[in-house]
């Protein structure tokens, strides 16, 4: 269910029928359909088939319990007449959970409801086991079946609960945490800069510019041959450095780099596109960090996890300031590296 964005290549964002017709005559104004943009929609993720099957199982069992409690009682080996009422009640519970699971895109609540139901069922079966009117063989079979289904219920519920935790940074709208895919931390942010694409491209072309606005970088040294040496600000005792090479470079469109050797495996890219109506350039930055295994790798992973979306966005704002006004704007409070009231800092407090 992606959102499709149509864009008039030359004419701005709003499709204008008049101008479109005109544009069809001239190659310059050809109306193009930009590549559709797909936003991840975790809410609509394909429910796994086991969960879906458990939902239908609930509906079937519930219907049987409500409409034919006698038959169900005989099947599981308990006394028919004593249990009609309680079986009907359990049936209603099953139906509710079943419809909840089948109809909800993300039935976490209803799956846990099923788990709770399993506990009640097992308790009831255990109680029935001690009753004189019980066919123990059948009841044991029923108990085994319920235990098996319970295990599935628990597994699916845990899976669903884990999926809804805000690890992706997209689903909950917070955009705060790096998305982690197979141990790789992915972070991206976008900003519009009031400068032509060529000027923005020229700036990104030189990695030595990056530490000027990327607060986590200590230095980037050009080592020649399209290679550079990157060093990250790290706590004392931890050194995080790597050599990087340009992986892809399309003039005025994108630059991607990747680490070739060093303390952490990472890639990054910056994509540029003209913003409509002379609004400058849209700049999208993405980084992927894959820490190595082992205790040092874990420490480095922590270091990168501490770089949230907000920091990347602030980096891009500083980049925008460098492009548009040539320096990074300071206020009395932000000129000092720690919390400071809005009053002139002393010289000794100033960031060097």
């Amino acid at each position, binding site marked *: 269910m992606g959102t499709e964005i149509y864009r008039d290549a030359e004419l701005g964002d709003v499709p204008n029928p008049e101008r479109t017709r005109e544009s069809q005559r001239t190659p310059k104004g050809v109306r193009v359909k930009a590549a559709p943009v797909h936003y991840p929609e975790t809410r609509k993720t394909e429910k796994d088939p086991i969960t879906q099957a458990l939902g239908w199982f609930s509906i079937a069992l519930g219907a049987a319990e409500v409409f034919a409690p006698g038959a169900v009682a005989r099947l599981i080996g308990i006394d028919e007449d004593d249990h009609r009422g309680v079986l009907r009640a359990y049936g209603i519970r099953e139906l509710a959970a079943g419809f909840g699971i089948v109809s909800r895109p993300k039935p976490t609540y209803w799956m846990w409801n099923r788990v709770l139901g399993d506990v009640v069922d097992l308790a009831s079966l255990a109680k029935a086991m001690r009753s004189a009117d019980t066919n123990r063989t059948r009841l044991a079979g029923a108990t085994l079946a319920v235990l098996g289904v319970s295990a599935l219920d628990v597994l699916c519920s845990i899976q669903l609960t884990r999926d809804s935790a805000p690890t992706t940074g997209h689903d909950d709208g917070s955009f705060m945490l790096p998305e982690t895919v197979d141990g790789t931390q992915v972070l991206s942010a976008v900003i*519009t800069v*009031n400068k032509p694409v060529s000027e923005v491209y020229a700036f990104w072309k030189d990695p030595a510019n990056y530490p000027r606005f990327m607060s986590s970088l200590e230095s980037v040294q050009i080592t020649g041959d399209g290679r550079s040496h990157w060093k990250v600000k790290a706590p004392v005792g931890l050194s995080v450095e790597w050599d990087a090479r340009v992986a892809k470079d399309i003039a005025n469109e994108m630059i991607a780099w990747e680490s070739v050797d060093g303390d952490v495996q990472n890639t990054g890219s910056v994509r540029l596109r003209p913003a409509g109506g002379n*609004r*400058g350039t849209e700049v999208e930055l993405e980084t992927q960090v894959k820490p190595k295994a082992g205790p040092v790798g874990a420490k480095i992973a922590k270091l990168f996890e501490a770089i949230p979306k*907000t920091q990347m*966005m*602030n980096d891009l*704002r500083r980049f*925008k*300031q460098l492009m*548009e*006004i*040539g*320096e990074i*704007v*300071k*206020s*009395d*409070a*932000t*000129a000092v590296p720690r*919390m*400071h*009231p*809005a*009053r*002139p*800092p*002393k*010289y000794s407090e*100033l960031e060097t």
Partner: protein
Amino acid sequence: MRANCWEGAKHVKVEDVPDPKILNDRDAIVRVTSTAICGSDLHLFNGFMPTMERGDILGHEFMGEVVEVGKKVKKIKVGDRVVVPFPIACGQCWSCQHDMWSLCENSNPNAWIAEKMLGHSPAGVFGYSHMLGGFAGGQAEYARVPFADVGPLKVPEDLSDEKVLFLSDIFPTGYMGAEMCGIEPGDTIAVWGCGPVGQFAIASARLLGAECVIAIDRFPYRLKRAREGAAADVTINYEETNVLEALKELTGGRGPDACIDAVGLEGHAPGLPGLYDKAKQSMRLESDRIPSLRQAILACRNGGTISIVGVYSGFDDKFPLGAVMNRSLTIRTGQCHVHRYMKPLLEHIQNGNIDPSFVISHKMSLEDAPVGYDIFNRKEDDCLKVVLQA
């Protein structure tokens, strides 16, 4: 130097603080000759504006003499006498270049905080919370002014501080409020709030050719000033008169063509609705009290304009969107794009069309700032506008 600092709700104090220094190449340092307490400073004073910190220097209305400039400042020089606009604007971003200076995209180094509360960030502002940048304010002996080539306006020596100081905020703010009404011949404009911004909105509606201007407040001394200083045609004391009825009567039942809200987030209303808003705001269940805005919307004629220049901060209750939608009302608002208005309004002053000093009720020394805040907040001693001089 000495500066007036925020020390917590209802507590300001004049303290010794370090002198300002050039932090960016386009900064200037101004020796403040006159500064004023703004009605919006009272929202800080009363503790309704989030992200204030103990020790923040207040003040965003100030003027003075340039005493130092950064190495990239070209248009102004040491010795110039300047009025400083309250929004800080870089002049280079898309918003500045489209004349929307209070939306400067580069001047708020704490944009990320504002973004969390407002969706996107507006410009940085002097002495107005950390969410709007954490810039020291101008209620001090000296102030650092970023982008000194963009904001500060040189003013002629023959005009006194009292006449030009309000170009920094309240005159342009009131003027923009009137301008957003899109006044046409025959229009009736109603203005809620006769504080300094309301006074300038009334005076500006006059300058822009409104046929009839109606002023609404609850303090007789402010209504009197609206009649005598700002030339309002009619004044209504909302504690004595049913405003909606009176406005219908005055406009042949149509309602005012445009309504200006110059009240902001600490509005008052008589009776139960007023108590309701006070209770909710004090429990932080709503950010702003909006009784005057509600009334302005209900009063406005079908298809008319609501112009909001009073300051609001967050999420508000019982907003009559039904009236706005069903009666085709237009809402226009914004922190004033002061840079847009300074020169034309200076010309109005030079031509003698208006003397903005008519709003001043008190002049005192910077050292007396706490007294000024107190009487202004309590509307004591017929206080309308306090000017502080170092």
